[in-house]
């Protein structure tokens, strides 16, 4: 479906409800996002970032019809501040965490966004300048770096766990936020030797709430097994195959599985302040990927297999039968997406990225053989139905570059991994979509029965919005769009909590 068709069908749908345009003008608290002299690309305005303000919109403009059963909070997180005192970060990953709550209620959809008050954010907000090195920008520290948490931006994902929403960042501790107000309450401290250990932004939550996570730093890995309410049940710290970055992982019925990409690090250049962490990364294709497989019941039972190199950030899901693990992820060729493409975007340039492709890996634990297959679509941010995490799944959902010539992920796609068939909808040029998550329909039990919910940016309107799709009928177009009267910075990841 092209953009014109999409908007025509939407107009028809909205026409029936005859929504008056006066519903648009809603109170917005917080300063309006300001212009930046350091960034000028209206196609990617969200990369301009905000200036530390908290924003609240009582009621987004609804186009279409919100499903009556879709109720809950969609928490998202992403880097929201890129400039201080005339200095702009070189990299998208560097910005301070801005957590969003999109609330779906009987009154419609509200939006609140609040910066995570990390120690770094508070100190830099007060000083009106950057004080600490960033992941992708080499800055000589102006305050002592006490630990990895001195650089903690809490900017990568948000998930509800127990009484808090956690703002996650892979290099350090999780931050605890109030689920209602999004105010920062403190950091998660597992105590003793675990204090300050990295806690990744990609925990895997099984349907019963069992919560798995990991962290890596300087050649060591920690794995965590948490209860559904966030109590630490088990953990282990061990040496891992060397890599400067392990972003995500997958869980099967029996194993935790890591694809460890061959990323070296010129630590001397980082210490000397010459290079950022990302700038100091070195792609070592000849080393290949190390596949680390950890037994869920006994973390000391570990195995490493090898496969040819590619770069991977994100995984969809994994499951296993008879000693054969099947997992899906999104691959790119190497580090170029991170150390070339993203810095160009941050400078306001329009650059084409190397494609990111859905990739399927088979790990045969009986033979030690690893197989890989990829599809051709350009996509990212895979998610599956939360009811199939760590067990056999059929579908994977992605934002996808759906319109020929589009320089963004302008559509959504459901992939049927059994038949290879896809269900795709395009929103067209000028639209960039972010991660979309599946929210099961109450009372349903079948995988995929639910709504696909995500957010995006509309360059023509310079506004951000949330989308709701019938997950099994994406090509029919969105069921509803909730538009904000402003734009927000892009997010990375989040979770919907019904």
């Amino acid at each position, binding site marked *: 479906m092209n953009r014109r068709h999409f908007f025509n069908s939407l107009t028809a749908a909205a026409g029936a409800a005859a929504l008056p345009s006066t519903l648009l003008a809603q109170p917005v608290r917080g300063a309006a996002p300001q212009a930046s002299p350091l960034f000028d690309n209206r196609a990617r305005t969200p990369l301009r970032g905000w200036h530390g303000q908290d924003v609240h919109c009582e009621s987004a403009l609804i186009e279409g019809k919100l499903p009556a059963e879709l109720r809950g909070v969609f928490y998202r997180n992403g880097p929201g501040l890129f400039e201080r005192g005339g200095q702009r970060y070189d990299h998208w990953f560097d910005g301070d965490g801005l957590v969003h709550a999109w609330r779906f209620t009987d009154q419609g959809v509200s939006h609140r966004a609040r910066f995570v008050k990390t120690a770094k954010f508070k100190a830099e907000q007060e000083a009106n300048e950057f004080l600490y090195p960033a992941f992708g920008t080499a800055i000589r520290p102006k305050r002592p770096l006490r*630990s990895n948490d001195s650089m903690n931006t809490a900017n990568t994902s948000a998930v509800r766990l127990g009484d808090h929403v956690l703002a996650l960042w892979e290099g350090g501790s999780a931050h605890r936020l109030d689920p209602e107000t999004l105010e920062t309450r403190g950091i998660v401290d597992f105590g003793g030797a675990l204090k300050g*250990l990295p806690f990744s932004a990609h925990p895997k939550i099984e349907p019963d709430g069992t919560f798995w996570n990991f962290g890596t730093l300087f050649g060591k890995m920690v794995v965590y097994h948490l209860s559904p309410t966030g109590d630490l049940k088990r953990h282990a710290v061990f040496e891992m195959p060397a890599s400067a970055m392990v972003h995500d992982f997958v869980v099967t019925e029996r194993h935790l599985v890591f694809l460890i990409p061959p990323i070296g690090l010129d630590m001397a250049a980082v210490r000397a302040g010459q290079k950022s962490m990302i700038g100091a990364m070195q792609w070592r294709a000849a080393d290949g990927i190390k596949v680390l497989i950890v037994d869920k019941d006994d973390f000391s039972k570990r195995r490493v297999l090898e496969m040819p190199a590619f770069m991977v950030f994100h995984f969809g899901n994994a499951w296993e039968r008879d000693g054969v693990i099947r997992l899906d992820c999104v691959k790119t060729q190497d580090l170029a997406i991170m150390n070339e493409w993203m810095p160009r975007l941050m400078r306001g340039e329009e650059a084409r990225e190397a494609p990111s492709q859905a990739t399927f890996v088979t790990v045969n634990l009986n033979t030690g053989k690893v197989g890989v297959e990829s599809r051709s679509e350009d996509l990212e941010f895979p998610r599956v139905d939360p009811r199939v995490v760590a067990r056999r799944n059929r579908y994977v959902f992605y934002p996808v570059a759906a319109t020929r010539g589009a320089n963004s992920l302008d559509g959504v796609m459901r992939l049927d991994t059994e038949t290879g068939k896809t269900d795709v909808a395009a929103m067209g040029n000028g639209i960039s979509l972010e991660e979309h998550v599946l929210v099961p329909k109450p009372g349903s039990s079948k995988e995929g029965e639910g709504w696909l919910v995500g957010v995006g940016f509309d360059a023509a309107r310079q506004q951000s919005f949330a989308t709701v799709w019938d997950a099994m009928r994406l090509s029919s177009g969105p069921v509803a769009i909730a538009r904000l009267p402003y734009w927000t910075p892009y997010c990375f990841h989040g979770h919907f909590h019904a």
Partner: protein
Amino acid sequence: MPKSSFVFALLASLAQGAAMAQSPTITVEVSGVAEAKGYILVAAFDKAEGWLKRPAQAARADAKAGTVTVTLPGLADGEYAFSVVHDLNGNNRLDANALGIPSEPYGFSNDAAGNFGPPKFEDARVKVGKDATKFVVKLN
């Protein structure tokens, strides 16, 4: 970051007896103390060799929220670098987590900042003499 660079068991011995009568008493004002728990440890180092390992002089005081003043009696005139630790659990050392990264607050004279490791001795070095007896170190 190598474990050894961050784990400095700098106060294994609190060298109380080394005071030299003719030298002025040095005070180190430690700000940014988050809570009244444990001790504030101060160590003075007089050379790059042994930096964060073998202090020339060390002292401690009870922690209280805000600013804590620690006195070092009798440091001979010269150049020193100070390290400060908020020893929350009172074990006379800077604790580290399973990755060797400090898990208690610390700081250095000159507010010297290391980049993914402790700062150099030279960056934290200050002059100590009869006109220079008060120093401020921030924990942050």
